[in-house]
């Protein structure tokens, strides 16, 4: 495996710290990447991987710490300067212009010119040379929009490689690829490694890390836990390093009497997203839905609520089969969903808190078609107080509140609609500790009153603390149902990374 290349240090990040309001994202992280190695970075969601990479790409500036690229200390840099320093990024989402050709995309931003005109001959020649280097067989004159996803990714890589980078970051590159395409990608990565490029490889798929990685750094809670040779580590060890921590934030778990099934889902499926999902949630029960990003957990939640309806299978609420093809039908079936992307799907930022609150049921607070303003205000104010809305000003635009308080309103909005089933997708993501406690209290109260809760969270410790049972998804299939007694971070993580099949 060791090639005849210079094994000097390509990148040295020392004692990097970065805080966002209310969150310490990185705390003294050290990372050393050698030339010509594939260095994997693993960690739970929120461990700080993306923040670290965004610092490397110049999108964020670290609060403390230093960066050296090829032995040269780097000061404050912006994304353009990072690129000029030879740092290339390949994200999950591709940055290509679908209507331009492969060659045009590869040279975008640095078109070869002859006078004022684009020199199409050398444009095509450049593109061919780069693609040949990557051993990729793609016609440079093709419109990128006509290529397959895997081919588009190769074009994206070619675009980065054409700038002769010394460091290339791959952020979850295989999340939308099949097995065959993954093989092709790995071959390209191996070629890049052979030419001496330092590669940072971020993935949730530990098997891939075992296969392609030379060394691996485990991040947890914004700190680097360990850097090891891949040759001397097993996936199980990696999982332990990723999750092995004391529960610093204890979530109170209420012991509730559990009743009859409220939500029963049988063989739910939706093409290319998930298949044959069967689960149930009983009255007073909080059930977790775990899985890695892209495992289909969000899609399952959206299907049950009707946002992206299921194509097959059956949903029953209190034993009665219901047809749910839109959120309106979801609401009338007694289901509510607190969506994952609060900004996009949770709030209307310009409207006051009061109007956000009553959005789903404003039609019911009326007399002769007119909104009963007094009743609306009183109801919302009472609810806002119960939720500890801070500041408790329901006439202020929603967009002026903190993330945690916005989330309380999204949650309160649905509780006001009195659902039987409450589905929560990442209810505490990006939320500070105080608001998190409030949100857990509210969820607990809902369960206590006989409601059924289905909760998605990337934070395993949260699920373990709150849930009575945990269903685990892996690549669109249900792989495990773990009761509270036997659920540990390791057992859930093992199932979620596809190492256990139910």
């Amino acid at each position, binding site marked *: 495996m060791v090639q005849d290349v210079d094994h000097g240090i390509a990148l040295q990040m020392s004692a990097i710290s970065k805080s966002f309001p209310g969150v310490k994202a990185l705390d003294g992280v050290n990372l050393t990447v050698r030339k010509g190695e594939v260095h994997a970075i693993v960690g739970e969601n929120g461990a700080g991987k993306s923040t670290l990479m965004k610092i490397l790409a110049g999108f964020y500036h670290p609060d403390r710490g230093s960066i050296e690229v090829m032995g040269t200390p780097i000061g404050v840099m912006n994304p353009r300067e990072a690129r000029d320093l030879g740092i290339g990024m390949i994200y999950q989402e591709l940055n290509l212009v679908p209507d331009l050709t492969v060659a045009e995309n590869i040279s975008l931003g640095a078109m070869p010119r002859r006078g004022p005109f684009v020199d199409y001959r050398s444009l095509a020649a450049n593109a061919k040379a780069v693609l040949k280097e990557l051993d990729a067989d793609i016609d440079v004159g093709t419109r990128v929009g006509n290529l397959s996803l895997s081919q588009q990714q190769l074009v994206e890589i070619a675009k980065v490689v054409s700038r002769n980078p010394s460091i290339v970051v791959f952020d979850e590159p295989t999340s939308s690829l099949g097995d065959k395409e993954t093989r092709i990608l790995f071959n390209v990565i191996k070629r890049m490694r052979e030419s001496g490029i330092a590669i940072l490889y971020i993935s949730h798929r530990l098997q891939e890390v075992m296969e392609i990685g030379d060394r691996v750094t485990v991040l947890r809670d914004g700190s680097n836990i360990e850097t090891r040779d891949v040759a001397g580590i097993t996936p199980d060890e990696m999982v332990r390093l990723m999750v092995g921590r004391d529960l610093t934030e204890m979530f109170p778990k209420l012991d509730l009497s559990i009743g009859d099934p409220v939500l029963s889902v049988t063989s739910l499926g939706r093409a290319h997203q998930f298949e044959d999902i069967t689960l149930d949630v009983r009255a007073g029960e909080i059930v977790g839905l775990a899985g890695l990003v892209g495992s289909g957990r969000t899609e399952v939640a959206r299907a049950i609520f009707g946002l992206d309806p299921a194509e097959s299978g059956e949903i029953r609420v209190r034993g009665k089969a219901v047809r749910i093809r839109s959120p309106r039908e979801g609401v009338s079936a007694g289901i509510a969903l607190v969506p994952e992307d609060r900004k996009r799907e949770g709030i*209307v930022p*310009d409207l006051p808190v009061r109007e956000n609150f009553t959005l789903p049921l404003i039609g019911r607070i009326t007399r002769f078609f007119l909104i009963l303003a007094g009743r609306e205000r009183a109801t919302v104010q009472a609810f806002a107080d119960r939720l500890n809305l801070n500041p408790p000003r329901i*006439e*202020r635009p929603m967009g002026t509140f903190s993330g945690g308080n916005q989330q309380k309103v999204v949650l309160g909005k649905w509780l006001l609609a009195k659902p039987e089933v409450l589905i929560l997708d990442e209810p505490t993501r990006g939320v500070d500790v105080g608001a998190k406690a409030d949100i857990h209290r509210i969820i607990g109260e809902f369960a206590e009153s006989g409601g059924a809760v289905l909760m998605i969270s990337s934070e395993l410790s949260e699920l373990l603390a709150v849930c009575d049972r945990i269903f685990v998804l892996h690549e669109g299939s249900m792989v495990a149902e773990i009761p509270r007694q036997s659920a540990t971070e390791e057992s859930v993580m093992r199932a979620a990374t596809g190492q256990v099949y139910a």
Partner: protein
Amino acid sequence: MSLVKSDPNPGPAPAGTLTAGSVLSVLSIPLAIVALMVLGSFVSPSFLTARNLVNILNAYSAVGLAAIGSTFVAVCGGLADLSIPANVAMGALVALGAQTLVGPVAAALLGILVASLGGLVNGVLIGYVRINPIIVTLGSGFLLLGLSQLLVGGGIVYSEPSAFGSFVAGNLLGVPVAVWTFFVVALILHIVLSRTPFGRWNFAVGGNYEASAASAVPVRFTRAAAFVLTGLLSGMCGVLIALSIGQARPIIGAGYEFVAISAVVLGGTSLFGGRGSILRTVGGVIILALISNLIVLIGLPTPSTGLATGTIILLVVAVDAYLRRRTGAE
């Protein structure tokens, strides 16, 4: 913007708090109207007579109806309805053309109905098929205008004399029926936009379409309904003009889409959705009416109206954008 903000921005002023910005935004339209009237009284002694003021309003009442519809369209994030002139023409031509067949009242209603159907086509394509509103209304506008020209062959349709026709063209308690119509419709639709669930949905859909859909708001219906309403009001506009002047031609509403948009923008309703009010649009209509009258009184050629209106709109929008950015609302 980060997702996590422990310290919320002050942002727009909370209700009940008076800041320089909020006072300015509430008073700017009345102030502009007063300023124009003072200016007018200097320019011509006949300006500040009741007769002149009523005439000023009368000239803009019909197009004001289309502006009210455009307010719903803008608030729900539907940008603008460019098919207003076509629906005005359809309303006017049918209202006069069908008089001999069904009588003047039924013909007027039929005109409004036909224009509403034009709005329904827009609404279905924009709300349910989700095509860009500008493209849909541009297309339907050309189509309906072409259809109206086919119907009358480029000629003029004249009104049959009738009691109903004289009533619509005449005065009620000294005020033209057109002006009454404008204010009554404005009042009703102001209540609809500000106090009914449908009105609330318009703001929500324009403010965040995805979040509204995820909150079980009937997003498609809301957008479609805003365009149906604008079609209906354009039809009323056409009927009013046709009966007032006793004739109708396909070009009867030419340029009205821009007058309507101008009134909406001058009133401070965001063309990008989520904010706005009918009362503000009424203010915008009055300001446009005053400007055009001032131009006539000063003795400038009529085409300068466009020049003056355009300048004022650009100024208003620029100042508004500047203030918003400074107060950190955007």
